[in-house]
């Protein structure tokens, strides 16, 4: 078990936290994220489970996380990287994990993160004709948007 943690620690610039057995968190700098993912794949983390974003609005940062799985050691590791919220740019991981392509399209649409190198990121994916803030950001108010665009049914509407 400790073997895989040591292997991750050997990758340059990683800060490793072991939460419990088979759940590891790896914090890296923005510049090193692609290199780290590549090294992680070389030591056996061959499956990308989730790639998504957490909006850390209090720190004005986006946290991008990649949940990886190592089939041989049966370990999940989460690579976390913080980027600037005002200029959210991240390099694509689709060359390393092909399944990252669709997840990156999703984060580009839902959070407005620019993904360099992914041609389709930024094109409409799930939403259609969307012209407001990216909806998963914390400063997008879903209730306000709904009450502006849709009409709620109230009990007095019965006779309408």
């Amino acid at each position: 078990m400790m073997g895989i943690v040591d292997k991750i620690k050997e990758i340059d610039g990683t800060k490793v936290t072991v939460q419990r057995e088979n759940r590891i968190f790896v914090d890296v700098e923005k510049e090193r994220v692609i290199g780290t993912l590549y090294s992680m794949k070389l030591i056996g983390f061959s499956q990308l489970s989730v790639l998504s974003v957490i909006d850390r609005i209090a720190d004005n940062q986006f946290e991008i996380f990649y949940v990886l799985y190592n089939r041989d050691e049966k370990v999940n590791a989460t690579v976390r990287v913080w980027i600037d919220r005002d200029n959210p740019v991240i390099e694509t991981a689709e060359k390393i994990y092909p399944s990252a392509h669709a997840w990156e399209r999703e984060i580009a649409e839902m959070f407005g993160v620019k993904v360099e190198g992914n041609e389709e990121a930024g094109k409409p994916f799930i939403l259609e004709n969307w012209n407001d803030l990216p909806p998963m950001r914390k400063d997008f108010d879903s209730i306000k948007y709904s009450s502006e665009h849709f009409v709620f049914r109230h009990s007095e509407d019965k006779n309408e």
Partner: protein
Amino acid sequence: MEKMTQDQVRTIANMLRKRSLWMIHYCTGCGAMELPPTMTSRYDMSRLGLAPFVTSRQADILLITGYLNVKTLRRVITVYEQMLDPKYVIGFGSCALNGGVYWDSYAVIKQLDRYIPADLYIAGCMPRPEAIITAFQDLMDLIDSGKADGYKRYKRDLAYYKENQRKVLG
């Protein structure tokens, strides 16, 4: 033989119409999960003369199975307008009625009958096959008595429906 009045023709037409309703096979939401049991051996809606059908041009019933998000609404309106008269809409589940658990969602519309006229609603999430069968029987009664007139309302109040549609679809 005396000539039949227009009313008599309509009565006979409605009587025949309600006996062979075809439902378009469009699973707009998660309520579509209770349709396969309704269609197949256990609840078997064919015994009421109902059958699922693939194209909009030959179908009579449009089931809005649950929530409708804005992207689907555009397709539902197209499908509804492609269907030939007379056509009937059943709003299925709480979400079509008032948004249901998605009341605060930015993607889901809250009232189906602002965009297309609904003849009947089934409450609940999700309605059981028994409720669906009852709804079909109620719809037949409405057709028989000439009260299922959603398609006429759509023509009469087209400006109202189009304005609401434009407001969400842009």
